[in-house]
């Protein structure tokens, strides 16, 4: 007595439409994670300031106390690090060079904002040194990058 369903057809058009809509959305909003100069485990905080999109100087401090300087635009990178290094996200710098490079970058683009990206396990003295350099070159406003704590 069972009926056989032969040639069952379902209109897939709406599903495909929605699929393409979502695809377009994700393709347009996606931003690939910028290449990191070094892997950094960020500390957590309850701060809700967002990291600015453009005009950022990133000072990354790795777990083993190495300091990396990075810019978000290729123009800045080629201006500060030389044409050959414009595709590299960040360059390792010595703490003595840092002041000079920061001044050089800021004269080129005064809108630049400075952020410090320190690893959780970085010894505090390195961060202290970086902050002293910032104070010396009159960057009195800067941000510390953190993850949002739950």
């Amino acid at each position: 007595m069972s009926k056989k369903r032969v040639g069952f057809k379902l209109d897939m058009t709406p599903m495909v439409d929605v699929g393409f809509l979502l695809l377009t959305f994700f393709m347009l909003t996606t931003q690939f994670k910028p290449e990191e100069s070094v892997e950094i485990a960020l500390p957590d905080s309850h701060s809700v300031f967002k990291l600015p999109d453009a005009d950022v100087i990133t000072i990354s401090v790795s777990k083993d106390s190495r300091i990396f300087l990075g810019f978000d635009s290729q123009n800045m990178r080629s201006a500060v690090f030389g044409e050959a290094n414009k595709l590299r996200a960040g360059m390792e710098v010595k703490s003595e060079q840092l002041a000079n490079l920061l001044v050089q970058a800021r004269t080129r683009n005064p809108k630049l904002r400075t952020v410090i990206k320190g690893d959780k396990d970085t010894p505090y003295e390195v961060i202290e040194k970086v902050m002293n350099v910032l104070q010396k070159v009159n960057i009195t406003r800067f941000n510390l990058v953190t993850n949002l704590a739950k």
Partner: protein
Amino acid sequence: MSADVGPSQSRGKQKHSKKKSKRVGVRIDMTPMVDVAFLLLTFFMLTTTMAKPQTMEINLPPDSGVNVEVAESNLLTLRVAADPKDTISVFYNTGIDKPVRLVGKNRTDCIAALGKMLKERIKSNPKLITLIKIDGKARYVDMVDIMDELNLADITRFSLAPLLDQDRKIIEKI
């Protein structure tokens, strides 16, 4: 599942006398295209991260050697000693009192205790200025956690100072 392009096949046949054959009901199998589209959709959905990192803003006074005079009674000093991973030792004192160690079962407890203490202190004395002295060997996350607690307690004015040997001696005794 094959693309069936119906009437176009009949074009070559001689039986039809019409010169222009009308193409009616051209059907193209869209399945592969839709498959690829959904594959891409899955890829973008999985790789997308919506969250951007947060930042903590800090304003430093300009480096011009300005000295700020603070009454001893308004000064809360926090000293952080270098500690092995996953623990934190914070010593606090007001003015010239003896430093007290913050107690907690673990790091998270200590930080929570610090937050509680700060909230009480700022309530009883809104003019409170906090001085943070962190050991150079301590971890960066200690500084961020302490600043975070200060921010949560609405203490927006604090200073950072290096932990000197005399501070080390003071906290070693406790």
